[in-house]
């Protein structure tokens, strides 16, 4: 990876694999009121609005680092990943990946990166994955021996041996995702961008994919930037996380510090006959609708509060949940804006 190292006098300086400074992306969207009159008016005049999807974020990723990229829906995560991969042209700011400017999509750059989008497929649907792999071998000009070796390794790590000769359309979601990831990594990219790679997968499959990503990173020293709504993915893989919200950087640092915040509270949903006012003594009342009360309580108090609720009230149903990631990040945003 020649672009990541440079010699400066006597000392060797490691350049970041991904370098982002004041990165911005704005979309111009047209909007109009509902109704026929507004529709006719929009034929002549279109009202447009500029929406900042990414609003001046900065971070660096060192070679070989795995970083979790978190934020609620619409936070700007996918937009950022697409800019890093070269699919989107930034509106402003600096962005280099392995020393390349991504949007120029130079071949030398494209051969060193990969983007996996959990909700999109690159494998040809009607033929076995192995045929798509062969096509990728030709496209990425992978020497035959390297291709064979990498394919053997990926087949073993992902346990996809029996799947390779079946048409992709006959595979389950999890099996397909594993084949998608293998296809994306055949050329051994140095930068791996994963956008919700475990979305829709069952817990076992999620765990296997996580183990695989960690192993790929360890074996090839690849830099990994990963978005996920599953905190388990992030906890298992990333020491460092970057949180963005409404296009702005909210947190960049050790996961442990953020995890503490993530799991500092639990949500208790109690189904009661009536919506009572005095539940404030049990915890923070988030909502109270149709006899269903949502309480937010410190994690350490969960067992005690649950016990009290069951003892004191006529409870029809009670569930204890981790707060949704969007809610937690929103709270972080409210409490500690950077």
């Amino acid at each position, binding site marked *: 990876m020649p672009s990541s190292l440079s010699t400066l006098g006597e000392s060797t300086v490691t350049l970041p694999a991904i370098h982002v400074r004041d990165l911005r992306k704005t*979309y*111009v969207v047209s909007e109009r009121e509902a109704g026929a009159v507004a529709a006719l008016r929009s034929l002549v005049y279109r009202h447009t609005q500029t929406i900042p999807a990414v609003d001046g974020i900065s971070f660096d990723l060192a070679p070989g680092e795995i970083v979790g990229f978190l934020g609620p829906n619409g936070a700007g995560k996918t*937009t950022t990943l*697409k800019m890093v*991969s*070269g*699919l*989107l*042209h930034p509106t402003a700011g600096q962005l280099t990946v392995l020393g390349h400017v991504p*949007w120029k*999509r130079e*071949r030398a750059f*494209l*051969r060193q*990166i*990969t*983007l996996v*989008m959990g909700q*999109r497929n*690159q494998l*040809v649907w*009607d*033929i*076995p994955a192995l*045929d*798509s792999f*062969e*096509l990728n*071998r*030709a*496209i*990425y*000009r992978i020497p035959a021996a390297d291709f064979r070796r990498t394919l053997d390794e990926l087949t073993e790590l992902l346990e996809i041996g029996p799947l390779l000769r079946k*048409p992709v359309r006959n595979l389950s979601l999890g099996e397909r995702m594993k084949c998608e990831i293998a296809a994306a990594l055949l050329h051994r990219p140095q930068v791996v961008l994963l956008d919700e790679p475990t979305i829709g997968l069952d817990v076992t499959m999620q765990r296997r994919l996580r183990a695989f990503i960690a192993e790929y990173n360890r074996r090839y020293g690849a830099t990994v930037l990963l978005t996920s709504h599953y905190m388990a993915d992030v906890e298992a893989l990333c020491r460092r996380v970057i949180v963005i919200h409404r296009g702005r950087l909210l947190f960049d640092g050790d996961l442990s510090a953020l995890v503490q915040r993530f799991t500092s509270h639990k949500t208790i949903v109690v189904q009661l006959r009536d919506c009572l006012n005095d539940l404030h003594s049990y915890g923070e009342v988030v909502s109270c609708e149709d006899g269903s009360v949502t309480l937010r309580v410190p994690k350490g108090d969960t067992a005690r509060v649950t016990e009290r609720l069951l003892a004191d009230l006529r409870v029809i149903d009670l569930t204890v949940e981790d707060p949704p990631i969007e809610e937690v990040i929103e709270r972080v945003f409210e409490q500690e804006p950077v």
Partner: protein
Amino acid sequence: MNGLVDVYVQQFKTTLALQVQYRAALVIWVIGHVLEPLIYLVIWSVVSTSTGGSVGGFTTGGFAAYFILLMLVNHVTYTWIMYEYEYRVRHGALSFALLRPVHPIHSDIADNVSSKLITMPGMLLTAVGLALLFKPTFHLVPWAVVATLPALMLAFLLRFLVEWTLALAAFWTTRVSAINQMYFVAVLFLSGQVAPLSLLPHTIQVAATILPFYWTIGFPVELLLGRLTPTQAWTGLVAQAVWLTLSLVLVRIVWRAGVRVYSAVGA
């Protein structure tokens, strides 16, 4: 270069594997390609017979030869890219193509050529069947047969580039079908598909020689039939080369502009 050959070979194998999966679709596709020229062939045969066996220099057998060859030439130069691009742009399939270190046009050309090679035996068999049925009269001229080969290759490349460029309209509009419709009407009348160009009004003939459509279908057919003089053949080959050069320039400009739009509004 070797790398690109490998891409073409692999794309051929992929397309072959895909086509084998859908044999019924393949047969329906071939039938569709046979039906249209067959309808024109039947109409013009009837017209020719009812007007004493000849219309505008074409005998009944001449019409049969024209439309049977037109069916084959149209098959060689046909593309379906304009139907596909909107889907690619709207559903983000283009994103994967953009992230690959090979220009997406290569896999489209390879895919097109592969499909043609696979379906060609079926088309040739059909042509033989139609020849037995309609008794075409061919007056093959050796130099014209030889000249048809480069003309056919240029016709394929020219039509491919023109339609690939038009398909890129999907970057700007979601109503690509309206553009496609306009284009197909133009092709129908100006390429010689609905009738040999010499039977159409003078203004249409002039328009057809200026525009690229005739050079992609009608010209190779008339050349192979031996209906053109050497001067007309040379003029045609030059016209094809000029249009091909213009299309190459245009496709680069439109592609760059389209990708800029794609990467500005989101993929």
